[in-house]
């Protein structure tokens, strides 16, 4: 995939990821306060936003839970890596299922009270899934570009 496509992909994920921290940016531009409820609603479509599971930081909290923040952070890290190396080979499907098992395992274990919900564990399992999932998204986009070019 050409650098310009990889850069666009990275930029889109970066914008989405930055949006999670909108509350933090309000102190730099107070007009963002107008957009905050709208953005909360947007992120609520892809995250339950349970208050106990949001990450608290200086001046606010994230608009997605720890796990979702981890997923997007993972995708962002992978997108950054792909900016510099486009020839990484798509690993087997097990590569995607291992983080899924970790994530489902965490959800199951805290749901049956083996241990308490931990934002750190949720974030890390999300991070693993996001970074692995990006490989497959990247492969899909790469194939799509090839298909479009072949048709031309």
């Amino acid at each position, binding site marked *: 995939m050409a650098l310009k496509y990889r850069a666009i992909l990275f930029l889109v994920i970066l914008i989405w990821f930055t949006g999670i921290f909108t509350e933090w940016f*309000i102190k730099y531009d*107070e007009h963002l306060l107008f957009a905050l409820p709208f953005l909360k609603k947007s992120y609520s479509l892809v995250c339950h936003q349970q208050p106990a599971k949001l990450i608290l930081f200086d001046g606010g909290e994230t608009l997605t839970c720890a796990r979702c923040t981890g997923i997007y952070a993972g995708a962002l890290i992978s997108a950054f890596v792909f900016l510099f190396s486009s020839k990484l080979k798509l690993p087997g499907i097990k590569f995607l299922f291992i983080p899924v098992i970790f994530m489902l395992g965490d959800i199951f274990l805290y749901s049956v009270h083996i241990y308490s919900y931990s934002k750190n564990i949720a974030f890390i399992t999300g991070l693993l899934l996001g970074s692995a999932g990006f490989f497959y998204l990247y492969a899909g986009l790469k*194939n799509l570009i090839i298909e479009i070019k072949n048709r031309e």
Partner: protein
Amino acid sequence: MKKYISSLVTGFGAGVLQIVPFLRSFSCCMIIPLASFFSLLLNQMATKSREKISSKNALLFGVMTGLYAALFGTIFEIFITFITKHNDIIATFPELQRMVENFPVSPEIKTEVLNIFQNVRNEILTYGFSVLYTFSVLINNLIVDTIFGAIGGLIGAQVINNRLNNRIN
């Protein structure tokens, strides 16, 4: 459009799941991408196809699933708001007030923001409908669901193709 009947089915399911609080909290950000994945699987089963899914098809199925989910999600949300005259804006308004008060911004901005949401809240409490709320729900659902649907379609196709590859080998 008959081609996208599986997207209609899973998009409808996702639209319903998106507005049920308990189910929503369970499946979190996976609802729309999984709906796209299942629409591809359903289509494969319905057409009894053993061929690899092209990325273009995967993208189209994903986008269609997202569009259907957005459409149904918006209709259900607006309809439920209209019937009950209650929604998350009403429920979270006191929290929003507290939150806005705590931000280090000028009092004019705080008042303006709260006025906008007070108006929306009053419209919903009185008529069960607010143009601004409806517009924001529709735009939000259309953009977010379509993008996540497309992502789910592209990743889902990789997973399905990988499985097909393993079967062939």
